[in-house]
């Protein structure tokens, strides 16, 4: 079920009421109820996929307990390997198997070795990319003794399937979620009220901004050959806004829902489109995923390389720089691949990885240049320039993310940068011309808060505050675009 559906609007209050009816001293009952609710929520999509989620969670529980009970390091390593094989294997099978087989068949045909294409029709379980990563976090943290695996299986199952975050994140680490689930929870009115505000803002972003942008984005990307460059610019910028509003909206709703149950989920977006560099952008965008890849991919690679290369330089490149380049390249190619089984995502990841490496390499020369010119790094014009360049790079990279193929993406870009760039756009929306600046202004004003309207109007008298909330509800109701699936559900 979707967060913005009537079904969920009934589901949430029922679960909320049952949850807080249970006396808090019966913690296991509260967790059991949440687990049941999580399985109902997930199984609503397809009950067969619930079997997969449940089995994977049980595997991770057993692996965790096994590692905890084993003192010998080899035994723990074997169990870790088994757990990783199970999780990654499952992800690979459901998400990438058909793609790699198709590629193998296509390449071998090119090389003159025809292979039979088995025409695999594998359903992609919704949320699999997220809950397998949660699972990997769990078993790796248990292995490194960062968390103690609970004896109570309910706690583990719930950690790996908590319904607000199971489908599309945020990727809340088990080491922060598990202690909250093992602790008594007392109803906190201010937390719950804050959660409701966050849900409201998330719904506004998703239903009003993202879904309305999608109507034009879909048309423009489908028929890019028939549109002027300026129209393609409109489509590209609207997709940039759509994906942010969609994903941040979802994350805000997820965090707000979790707050209703006394659970704190870490923020996932920190106003990324205000970033003035690519590095800063990735410190603000989908932070839970970026941090996951940093902790479980980049840092292990970097430590391994640093441990193996003694020399200060290797192949004439400074070892630290080389480590960074290799680490970032692998991390970002995998980040791209995580988003989908298509070369477009890998290329998108590669583009961002390249700019991160470039920024890393140019950082010192840039600072020296600014010093030589007597320009302060916090200079407003410099910041504005940095913002513009960053936003442009991010927008253009999104074209690869959105396109169905690299050919389509390149075609889109070549049409974009044609002479028709200076014509009046053929597709635009007056509604969005008002909504987007309004949304952007609210985000700017609230940029120091966890989410844009966290403190907006809090000091107003109650009637004014409620009028503001009613206004948002009215806009959500009136301006909801044609319902679109959450973009990150595809991952």
């Amino acid at each position, binding site marked *: 079920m979707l967060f913005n559906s009537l079904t969920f609007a009934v589901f949430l209050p029922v679960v909320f009421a049952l949850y807080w009816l249970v006396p808090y001293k019966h913690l296991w009952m509260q967790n059991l109820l949440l687990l049941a609710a999580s399985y109902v929520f997930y199984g609503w999509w397809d009950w067969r996929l619930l079997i997969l989620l449940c089995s994977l969670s049980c595997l991770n529980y057993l692996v965790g307990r096994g590692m905890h009970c084993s003192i010998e390091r080899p035994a723990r390593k074997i169990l870790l390997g088994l757990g990783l094989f199970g999780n990654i294997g499952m992800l690979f099978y459901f998400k990438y198997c058909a793609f790699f087989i198709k590629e193998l068949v296509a390449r071998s045909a090119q090389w003159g070795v025809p292979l039979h294409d088995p025409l695999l029709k594998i359903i992609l379980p919704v949320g699999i990319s997220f809950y397998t990563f949660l699972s990997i976090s769990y078993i790796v943290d248990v292995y490194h003794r960062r968390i103690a695996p609970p004896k109570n299986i309910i706690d583990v199952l719930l950690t790996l399937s908590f319904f607000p975050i199971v489908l599309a994140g945020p990727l809340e680490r088990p080491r922060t979620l598990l202690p909250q689930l093992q602790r008594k929870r007392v109803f906190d*009115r201010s937390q719950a009220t804050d959660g409701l505000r966050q849900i409201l803002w998330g719904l506004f972003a998703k239903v009003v901004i993202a879904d309305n942008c999608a109507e034009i984005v879909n048309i423009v990307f489908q028929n890019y050959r028939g549109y002027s460059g300026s129209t393609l610019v409109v489509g590209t910028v609207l997709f940039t806004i759509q994906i942010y509003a969609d994903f941040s909206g979802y994350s805000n709703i997820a965090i707000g829902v979790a707050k209703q149950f006394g659970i704190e989920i870490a923020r996932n977006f920190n106003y990324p489109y205000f970033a003035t560099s690519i590095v800063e952008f990735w410190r603000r965008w989908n932070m839970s995923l970026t941090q996951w890849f940093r902790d479980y991919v980049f840092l292990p690679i970097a430590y391994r390389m640093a441990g193996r290369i003694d020399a200060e330089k290797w192949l004439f490149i400074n070892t630290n720089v080389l480590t960074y380049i290799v680490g970032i390249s692998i991390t970002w190619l995998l980040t791209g691949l995580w988003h989908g089984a298509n070369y477009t995502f890998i290329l998108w990841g590669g583009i961002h990885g390249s700019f991160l490496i470039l920024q890393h390499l140019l950082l010192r020369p840039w600072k020296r240049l600014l010093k030589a010119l007597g320009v302060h790094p916090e200079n407003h014009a410099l910041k504005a320039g940095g913002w513009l360049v960053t936003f442009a790079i991010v927008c253009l990279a999104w074209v690869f993310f959105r396109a169905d193929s690299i050919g389509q993406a390149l075609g889109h870009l070549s049409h974009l940068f044609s002479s028709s760039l200076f014509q009046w756009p053929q597709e635009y929306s007056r509604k969005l011309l008002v909504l987007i600046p309004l949304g952007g202004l609210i985000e700017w004003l609230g940029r120091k808060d966890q989410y844009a309207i966290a403190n907006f109007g809090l000091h107003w008298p109650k009637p004014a505050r409620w009028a503001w909330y009613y206004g948002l509800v009215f806009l959500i109701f009136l301006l909801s675009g044609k319902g679109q699936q959450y973009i990150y559900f595809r991952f």
Partner: protein
Amino acid sequence: MRRYLINVALFSITPLILLVLALAGYVITDPFRVLYRHDDYTKDMFVIPSRDYVSSEVYIKNKDARHYDSFIFGSSRTVAFQTRAWANYLGDSASPYAFDAYSESFRGIADKLRFIDQHGGRVRNAIILVCRDHSFERGNDESSILLVRHPAVAHTSWLRFHGTFLRGYLNGHFLASYYLYMITGKFVKFMSGYIEERQLAYDPVTNDAITSSIDQEIAKDPEGYYRTRARVFYPRSDSSIVDTVSRIDPDQRMLLAGIRDLFLRHRTRYAIIIAPLYDQVIFNRRDKAALEAIFGPGNVHDYSGKSWITDDIHNYYDNSHFKPFIGDSIMHDIYRKHDRIAAPGFMTTGRGTGE
């Protein structure tokens, strides 16, 4: 907790009152005409309805009195095939009916034929209009009020059917458009997609679309009509384009064979007409061969691609719907070409599944 719940309850009072009022309005006004039986589903109807539902309901209402035995199946493009014109080729005893639906697929047509058959109806004559873009769709879009199908005909859930309309009604944009139009009687641009800008009437007996209002508008200022729609009538390619995507797979073949078998049982005289679509794309050759193998080459009439019909924009109301005089011309062409259209047992009737 108590204070929180009280605040939530108080905040919810206003939206709940509005919701109750809206629901009352839904029950009282029945905007989509799906809650109650109506004598005329299209009179004074300004909300765009589910064409499948209306066509099915009108058929159910009138079938015992009218004994319909000749049917035109297809999408909204069947507006070009008027039963009064078709009747000239059917004989005096024929009782024709336009059994269309928006974006109709062969799945929908098969369900309608089965429904007619199961309720004792006869199918003496049939025209099926094949559109490359709709006819081979598989699933039903139960989430769209325009495309949702009549549950009795499609064997789907009545609960889901009414749920679709209720959800469609509780859309803020729809509510605003609906009640604003109801109060003012004036169409405003933001209502498009929910309210009919130009009310298209349908004959309450034959279910024919009555195009007189749009025909009058064109007659008043023909050049103006097409000039203001220059973006709608997009330029076509100078060279011929053939559709390279084959849409008839083994499942579709079975479906089509089922339709053919029903025609054989009813000894139906039928014509499968591949629509002259504005995009001038030639129908996929493999699919055409499949249709001919199943229905008989003499019964499949291909009007796709470049022709005197598709070349002239004045033959169309928009880039999708061609005019009734084109339908008349096609029917004249078909019935004049062979006086037979799949006479039962005639050799041109296909037997296989077109494999």
